[in-house]
């Protein structure tokens, strides 16, 4: 028996409800808007927040790209793409420039985004103050009163204990000088890309039932201290062993036999595109 699904899996009422929350999120940059997160045919924690946003946004003309940890080919990315493609019939792509909607986990693509694109980020823990203050009621109050000492205190603790701000990913940001926001587990390297980005950036947390947004051309600043300024990961003079790219986020691979460290682009589609470009020249 073949089950007939509505376009983009959800019924129209559900999509409208999610869009309403999304509009509110765009109107208040960085503010976490609650929404009625639905049961999805994939497990919570596997990108259901991002998936719901994508399904509520997608139209027949859209072209979709899904990335997981920088790769378009991981099981999770493939499954999400399949679900969306099967219930909408839309085209999927690996190319950042072609896509109109990009759903991503752990990365913002290396290729700069454009005004007609939407980036949907999957978020496990939307509350940047959660470790400091376990109660949701209290964190809501702290946001309302713009009381963000806790966010800086968490960074202070890292410096005291490790000598540097050590957030590997999800380094908190101040959005539009108003709300402190968890940028999702992207590396610090991607934080500056949030600032004044041309694309609309939406963030969805399925398990925690929250949506928030960074509208195009919004000021986004990574939290830091006067004497410990925010810094992205550096790879010094390293470059990608495949495409030769510098100034991108590189994965370190260890050669099992020689123990030698090898570097290559984390953003595989960017890397491929560069290699194709190089070979065409």
């Amino acid at each position: 028996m073949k089950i007939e699904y509505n376009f983009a899996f959800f019924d129209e009422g559900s999509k409208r409800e999610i869009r309403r929350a999304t509009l509110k999120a765009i109107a208040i940059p960085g503010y976490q808007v609650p929404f009625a997160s639905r049961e999805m045919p994939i497990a919570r924690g596997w990108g259901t927040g991002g998936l719901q946003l994508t399904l509520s946004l997608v139209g027949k003309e859209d072209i979709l790209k899904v990335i997981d940890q920088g790769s378009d080919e991981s099981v999770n990315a493939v499954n999400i793409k399949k679900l969306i493609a099967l219930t909408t019939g839309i085209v999927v792509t690996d190319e950042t420039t072609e896509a109109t909607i990009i759903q991503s986990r752990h990365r913002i693509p290396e290729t700069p985004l454009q005004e007609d694109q939407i980036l949907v980020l999957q978020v496990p823990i939307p509350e940047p103050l959660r470790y400091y203050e376990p109660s949701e009621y209290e964190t809501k109050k702290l946001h309302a009163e713009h009381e963000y000492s806790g966010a800086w205190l968490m960074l202070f603790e890292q410096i005291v204990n490790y000598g540097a701000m050590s957030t590997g990913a999800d380094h908190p940001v101040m959005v539009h000088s108003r709300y402190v926001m968890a940028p999702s587990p992207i590396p610090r390297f991607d934080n500056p890309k949030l600032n004044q980005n041309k694309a609309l950036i939406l963030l969805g947390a399925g398990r925690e039932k929250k949506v928030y947004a960074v509208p195009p051309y919004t000021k986004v600043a990574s939290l830091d201290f006067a004497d410990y300024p925010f810094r992205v990961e550096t790879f010094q003079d390293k470059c990608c062993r495949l495409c030769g790219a510098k100034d991108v986020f590189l994965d370190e691979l260890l050669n099992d036999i020689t123990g030698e460290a090898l570097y290559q682009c984390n953003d595989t589609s960017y890397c491929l595109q560069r290699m194709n470009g190089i070979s065409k020249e």
Partner: protein
Amino acid sequence: MDDSERPVLAVRNINKQYGQGCVNCRGAKGEGLLKNYCPVCGTVYACRDISFEVYAGEILGIVGESGSGKSTMMECLYFDQEVSSGEAYIASYKGGETNVFEESSQQKRYIRNHLMGKVYQNPLMSLKMNFSSIGNIAEKLISAGNRNVGQMKVRGEELLEHVNIPVYRMKEAPKNFSGGMQQRVQIAKALSNNPPLLLLDEVTTGLDLSVQASVLDLIKSIQRQLKISMIIVSHDLGVIRMLADRTLVMLDGQVIEQGLTDQILEDPQHGYTQKLVQSLL
């Protein structure tokens, strides 16, 4: 009024009730009440028309039996709770002309962080037990706007030394510390922004006697060195005798007697105070 004689803090007619009141209790003051509550509707009148002043460099003691409203009064002053009615004026805030209870929550935060410090009986009320001790102190500095780690570490170490906690233990979390040490960390935190007023609520209750004595000595020496004004609440007249220049006696939410501590000890007027003093001898 000449600034030198303007009280650091002037409190006028603080009332705090839990419950709506009824015809039995709402009318003439205190009639129809059983101790501090209404037997008809159960409303608790925790603080009733409390007025007093604290002058520069003095320690004001507040003594009274359990349930007399001491902690409630201190919580109102530190904005942990909202007053039902009443006024408070702080000399160092807007020239002492503004009722701080009517200020916005942001302004109240400013007052808490810059103009007051509070030490609670229960250290959980002011310390994050999983954060480092120096981080706990830094929290108050960060709240007051400091964004320089180096400065905050220097200040934190100075304060820990001041309260006799070895600086090499600054990275340890207060949950590893004894009760007396936790109180010392609280005191260091409360002092961090050099507030003109320190609120201490039963800070030695529950500690064993020798530790009690050392914490009381610390408070005394801080007061001598820093000339900071303090309100110190205790149900133990011994603590009050040791520290307070002047004393208020509270019973059932009301101030029943106030004056110089020596005078009250030598010549108590109210029957309750007389019993209290007798029990001390």
